[in-house]
Each structure stands twice: as C-alpha cells, then as structure tokens.
C-alpha cells in the first residue's frame, strides 16, 4: 500500500470573520505531484502554511509522514517548502544564503550546495547578493532553499511566478526530475494551469475555502476530453446514425447524451445528419479540453449549486 505523506483531515481556519478553510480534507500519497487549484483567496496558501506550522492549527488535524500535528517537528525535517515570496538574507550572496540553510538543516556534504545551485540554474549568480537578484532568480533561490535538504515532501506555492518561459520549462523539468529520480512527493499551486497540468499527477480543486473535488490526471483527461456533447431524445437511434455515417469515436454518457470525441466536426452538418435520420436534437455543446475550461466549468457548477 502506498504511504500517505499528508493527511489533511477536516481542517477549518478563520481569520476574524473570514472563513478561509471550511472542513477541508484530502490526502497526498507518496510519489504524487499534487496540484492545488483555486482562485486567489481560495485557501491554497493557508493550507500550505498550516502544513508547515507557519499558521497555527485550530480545528481539524494534520498528519505528516504519520506524525500528528502536535508533534511533527521531525516530519518537518523531511519537508521542504517555498511559501509566498521567497525569503533570503539580502546582504548575503546566493552561496552564503544556502550555507545558512545547510547549517540550519545540519547538512555536512560539501557538494550539496554546488549541486543545488546548478540544479536551479544559479551557477552564474553564486556570488551575487540576494538583494541584487531578479524576481525570477529569487524564485530559483527560494526553490534551492526548499530542495537543498533533499526533502521527501516538497511544498511549492506559486513556484513559477516571475519566471521567464525558459525558466518555467526548467522548473518543470526540475520537478519531474525530483519526482522521478529522488521520489520526492510534491504539493504545488500555480495560477498557470497549463503548467500545473503538465507537471501534476493529481489535482485538488478548492473554492472559497471548500475542497470541491479531487481527480487523478487520468480521470481529468477522461473528463476534460474535447468534443461535442449531443443531447438527443433517442441515444440508441442516434448512435446507429453516427456509426453508419462513420462519425467516430463517440461514447454514450446517459439515456439522452452522447459525447462525440472530435472537436473539429462541422456542427451544422452533424445536426443535419441527426435530424434527417429522425433523431430529435435538443442541444449541442462544444467542449474544450483544457484544464482551464475544466476548472471554469467546475467552479460554475459549484457556484450554481451553492445558489
């Protein structure tokens, strides 16, 4: 059975009257790259701060590597994190800042710092003071702080903020490498959903402090497939017509919906085909396949449900 790295159990959090988290529960298993998705203020950063004890836990429980909230200092030693903007000592250089982190974590290896600097692509900036780094370089330094102790669990809050396109690609490769070569479990949030989709193996959707849904990448790929959703009176007859006209592939969703997995069909021709063959067409929806589209639709459904 796969080890549970994080068990976030019915956690609620209030800031004054604002309900930042409302009974949020989810689990992260070893090897997951867990993408946390939600609007600004949804509660993503609060979740990360609670896990790392930067924010005190009042309601619910959190278990990290099997250790409970009240006493998981040791579990935190197996965790690396970059939450909100990366923080460094401005008057120290990149290498000096990393030496401070190494000493805090009791890292003795002489090559660990050089390897990490190279890993995050800051080799040319090793003797530059932190205050002279660009936003993207500071982001890389923050990432270096998080990965220097070779954590088993890595928490990254918006790690690609301020990075240029090549930086984003490098970070993507880096996360892939950490996950595949060092078996690092990762919790990551980002506003750039295309990026999050590319790196994550599981997604958790959070909206207004509530945990809405969790899907694996496979499930998401199935759910977010692009194509045309047909609302018909007779699915059996409609499927016969589509089959005989070689409109494939398609799947029957329920007793009145068929999903044609081809987004490039001419919708006019398709409706004409069905109607000419005696199928009553009640509706036709084109579905886009992106994570953004999936997220938008999910949030729309949630908001409608709340009303």
């Amino acid at each position, binding site marked *: 059975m796969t080890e549970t790295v994080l068990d976030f159990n019915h956690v609620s959090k209030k800031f004054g009257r604002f309900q930042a988290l409302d009974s949020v529960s989810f689990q992260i298993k070893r090897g997951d790259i867990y993408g946390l998705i939600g609007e600004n203020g949804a509660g993503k950063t609060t979740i990360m701060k609670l896990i790392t004890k*930067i924010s005190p836990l009042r309601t619910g429980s959190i278990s990290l590597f099997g250790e409970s909230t009240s006493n998981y200092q040791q579990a935190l030693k197996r965790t690396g994190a970059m939450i909100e903007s990366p923080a460094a000592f401005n008057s120290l250089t990149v290498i000096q800042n990393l030496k401070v982190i190494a*000493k805090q974590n009791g890292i003795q290896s002489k090559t660990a710092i050089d390897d990490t600097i190279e890993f995050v692509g800051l080799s040319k900036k090793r003797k530059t003071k932190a205050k002279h780094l660009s936003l993207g370089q500071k982001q890389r330094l923050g990432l270096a702080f998080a990965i220097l102790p070779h954590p088993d669990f890595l928490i990254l809050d918006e790690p690609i903020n301020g990075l240029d396109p090549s930086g984003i690609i490098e970070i993507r490769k880096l996360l892939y490498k950490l996950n595949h070569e060092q078996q690092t479990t990762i919790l990551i949030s980002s506003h750039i959903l295309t990026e999050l989709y590319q790196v994550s193996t599981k997604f958790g959707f959070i909206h207004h402090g509530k945990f809405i849904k969790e899907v694996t990448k496979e499930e998401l790929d199935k759910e977010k497939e692009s194509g045309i959703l047909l609302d018909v009176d007779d699915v059996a007859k409609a499927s016969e017509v589509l089959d005989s006209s070689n409109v494939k592939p398609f799947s029957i969703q329920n007793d009145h919906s068929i999903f044609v997995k081809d987004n490039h069909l001419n919708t006019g021709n398709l409706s004409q085909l069905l109607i000419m063959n005696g199928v009553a067409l009640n509706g036709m929806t084109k579905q886009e396949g992106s994570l953004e589209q999936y997220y938008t639709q999910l949030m729309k459904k949630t908001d409608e449900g709340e009303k």
Partner: protein
Amino acid sequence: MNEDVNMINQLRADTYRLIHSVGFYVTLGLVIVYSALITKTKTVGGIMANGNEESLDRLARSNWTILDGIRGLTISASLLMYMVIGLFIITIGYEFSQQTYKNTLISGISRSSFILSKYITLLITIFISITAYFLTTIIMSLILGRSLGASLPNLLSTSVLTDITITFFISIVFSMGILILVVTNSIVISSIFIVVFPIGVTTVRMLANWKWLKYIDFFGASNEVSLGNLSISEFEPYIATCGVLLGVCIVLSLVSMREKEL
C-alpha cells in the same frame, strides 16, 4: 536530543551569518573606538538616575589607572547599548523584516529552540563586544603607560564581573526587544523600545522617586557594581529581577510565536 541538535544547528547558522555581516564588524569597530576615546580623553558619562557626581569628578580629575578606565567605561556603558543594537537587528531583526524566519521554522526547529537560540546568540555576541570594550581600555591604558590601580587578580576579577554584568543587563533589554519584535513584527518599534527603555526607567525613577525601579535600572546597577557601592549580597535582588524578566519575556515570545499567523 533532536531539539538540542536543532538548536546547535541554528546557533551555527546564526554564527555563520554574523561573521559574514559587515554590520557585525562595524559594531565591533565602533565599540573599540568608543572605548579607546573614553580611555584616551578620560571623558565618562551615560544614563544614570543617581549622578554620583563625586565619583565622576574624582574619575575625571584623577590620573587614570587601568581600574579607573574600567570604572569609566562601565559608567559609559549605557550609551554602548545603542551601538550594539546593530547585533539585535542582525541576529533576530532581519529574520522578521526579511521574513526568513519562515525558512528557519520550516527547517523543523521548534519555536522554543528558535527563541532560545536567538537569545543565546545575542548573549554571546554582546559578550564578545563588551569584552572587546574592556580589552581595548586595558591595552590602550598599557600603551599610555598607566598603572594597574589594583592588584592584577583584583583588576581582572572587576573587569570580568563588570563585563558579565553589563552583558547580562543588555541581554535583558534585548530579550524585551525580542518580545516586542515577535508581537509587533516591527524592527522599528522594537529598536525604539530598546533605545527608550533605559532612558525611560531612569527618568521615571528620578521624577517619581520609585525606589523599586532600581531593580530594572540596569545601568545604574552596573555603575554601582563598578564603583564598588553594591556588594554581591545586595546584588541578588537585581539578578532575581533579571531572571524573572528574562523568563517572562522568553515565555511570552514563545506563546506569541505559537499563536500568531507568521
């Protein structure tokens, strides 16, 4: 056991950071120059409720011995605190102003070890600075050809006792500064407190004539120690007050760190 290791790691990290900070050397330089100037010019002064003018006059007029230098430096130590305030800012102030405490706490160190390690680092660095302060006057006095003014063991014991007393008193003011820093997250408010506290206590003690304030008038107490007006047995209530104050500050800082959103 693990917590001890975490605390030692944090002390090592802070030491590394200090010795790579220009501010540390600037502070040390200022302390040495200040000490040398006092020794050379025989000019003493500081914040004190009880002016002890007779002793000051005697000091200013006399041919300074090394022991007089030690006494003069002790009287001037209240101003020294404003120079070593840089150590407070480097050691713990930056953690809050640059929000690097997040990196520190995520490394798995407990809040109590964090606060204690910061206090210990401050204590050590203040001790180094005060030792440099007194060593400078001894070396400077020897260069100026001044006599010891007391037997060597007496001189050394006075120097060491005064060094430890001043270090401890400054660290108590700084521990209150840590509490204010943790509560307010403001390096400015905590620094202002450190500056205002000794002046405030001395002023209130003079105006209100509250005798109990002498127990937190740290520089007044160290002056008395240096001038030999306070015996060891009389010194006990001061130590007890400091101990209680230190304990309260550390516990409140810890509670505040546990409860607040960082």
